């Protein structure tokens, strides 16, 4: 369980194989199907932070939730430590809930405002363990200390706290049962800028102290770069590129990744006015295009791109790319 254990760090904790997630939409509009995930292969290694980036609607949140088995996948498999959990019934998923937890974007909406902070933190302990009231309270106090909140927070209500503090409470709740995997879905996007870095630091500290494995979902590309060991870039329900975070940002190989990275505003006014390639409009996930999902907007497409979907394949050591034109 040690993050720095080099040999053990390559074993996947959570894994998706050929994961397909469809959602039916509109009972009255001809039963359209939203193709949210279209055959995703992804292995999250023990102790790493895997970043998921992509634009609105690319499927990054769906993928995070699918890994947690909050959805029932349409096809494909989800494994947790080698155990196939794809078809497991909800009542058998308790072990997964203890070992894998999620932090959501908006701590106001993801928390019951009528419960005291103590009750919010206690709930997972009540549901998942047989701990008695005394030890539960001690555990809650420990959790508060871990996320940097004072002890007297226990009897106060979430609305008495600022956004950043509420996100700390949400993180404490996720950690209540000592999970090994933490999925963070846009954990700082709803916070004030001056508070975001506090929460990012907290997550970094917690990971180090507990050897947590993290999946970090965000549309803020420089935040993901900072937090992640590896980054997967998604487009229209598929992973198009995956590599260690420095290679992805410094030497992207997929044309979509290149455009995405170039669009990041740089905090250097001198770099203003650089050429930013356009990525056009993302095609509809309801009428999925044939071939490569990016072909309609790709500046370098060739004939095969509109016919055949390129597989996610290794193009260099530890670097996967789904593009017909990315040479090895």
């Amino acid at each position, binding site marked *: 369980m040690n993050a720095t254990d080099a040999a053990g760090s390559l074993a996947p904790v959570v894994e998706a194989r050929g994961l397909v997630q469809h959602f039916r939409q509109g009972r009255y509009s001809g039963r359209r199907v939203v193709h949210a995930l279209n055959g995703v292969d992804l292995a999250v290694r023990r102790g790493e*932070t895997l970043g998921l980036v992509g*634009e*609105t609607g690319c499927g990054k949140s769906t993928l995070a939730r699918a890994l947690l088995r909050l959805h029932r996948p349409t096809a494909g498999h989800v494994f947790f430590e080698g155990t196939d959990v794809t078809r497991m019934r909800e009542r058998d998923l308790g072990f997964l809930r203890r070992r894998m937890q999620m932090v959501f974007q908006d701590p106001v909406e993801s928390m019951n405002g009528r419960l005291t902070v103590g009750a919010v933190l206690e709930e997972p302990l009540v549901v998942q363990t047989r701990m008695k009231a005394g030890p539960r309270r001690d555990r809650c106090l420990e959790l508060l200390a871990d996320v940097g909140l004072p002890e007297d927070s226990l009897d106060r209500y979430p609305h008495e706290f*600022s*956004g*950043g*503090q509420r996100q700390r409470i949400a993180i404490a709740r996720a950690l209540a049962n000592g999970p090994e995997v933490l999925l963070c879905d846009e954990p700082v996007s709803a916070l*004030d*800028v*001056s*508070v*975001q*870095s*506090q929460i*990012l*630091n907290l997550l*970094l*500290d917690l990971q180090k102290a507990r050897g947590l494995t993290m999946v970090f979902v965000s*549309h803020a*590309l*420089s*935040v993901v*770069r*900072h*937090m*992640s*060991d590896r980054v997967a870039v998604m487009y229209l329900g598929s992973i198009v590129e995956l590599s260690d*975070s*420095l290679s992805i*940002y410094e030497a992207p190989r997929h044309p979509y990744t290149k*455009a*995405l990275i*170039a*669009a*990041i*505003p*740089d*905090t*250097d*006014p*001198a*770099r*203003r006015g650089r050429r*930013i390639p*356009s*990525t056009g*409009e*993302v095609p509809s996930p309801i009428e999925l295009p044939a071939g490569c999902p990016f072909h309609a907007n790709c500046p370098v497409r060739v004939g095969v791109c509109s016919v055949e979907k390129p597989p996610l394949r290794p193009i260099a050591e530890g670097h996967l790319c789904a593009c017909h034109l990315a040479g090895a």
Partner: protein
Amino acid sequence: MAEAELLSVEDLSISFSTDRGSMEVVDRASFRVPSGRTLALVGESGCGKTVTASALMRLLPHPYGRVTSGRILFDGSDILALPVEEMYRIRGSGMAMIFQEPMTALNPVHTAGAQIRETLELHRGEIPASARGEEAVRILREVGIPSPESRMGSFPFQLSGGMRQRVMIAMALAGRPRLLIADEPTTALDVTVQAQILRLIRVLQEGRGMGVLYITHDMGVVAEIADGMAVMYAGQLVETGPVTEVFPGPLHPYTKGLIRSMPRLGSVPKERLPAIAGSVPSPHEYPAACRFAERCSLADSHCRQEAPRLEEAGPGRMVRCFKAGQA
């Protein structure tokens, strides 16, 4: 385009009346936007930047919000003293505003085309009714909407986020405003769309010599679009100056914190970030002394007892800090 003074705000204070009495949310803010230039008004939620923008358009919620002191000069005339009818004319053709969430600015039951034609009818009287459709198509094309003829008949819900934002910009530009007030127009958008919208605003501004007041909390966007910046904290301007000078050498600890605390492309992954401690105070907690002192690593007893004034700190730069420029 000469740097004619387009907008000049002097000592603007704004108060809101609440259950707990009157609350000052903006304290003597002064800034200028010349024609053809972009000033970024930077700050976090609740710092008073949006309220300031509303005051410029005389759109403060009546009767709760009030300008308690100061002047707003637009093209030489005092906005606060103008008759309401005159304001109707200025909104739209003098200054126009775009917002973060286009769905709140667009009318959901009218087509994109109808909403732009309405602006033309109100603010571009010289265009005959028969030519308005054509002009609306031209404007939609100008803001980068593909096949604008067919988009004229689209309702807002049929458009993507980026397209809605463009329609809202098209509406704002239809009246040919000389000042565009942009209130976080790209915050809800993906980076690729954001990059396009920023480029669009820049191109339109250069083409027309339009002044832009760009409100944002994103330092990346400031670096990308603005000429000058004014940083606001807890209702006060704390630092102003040209972007090319403030970025490499911020003088106020808050500005410095904003620039350095967010991860950048050059930062070392997984290293702790130099965060600003604490959180933003709410307006009834604003201290009488320095409002940032509680979160400031440089603050001493002087800072906690006395309020610093916004003072000149080199050519074109102002800062409100006793410790300005220290580590």
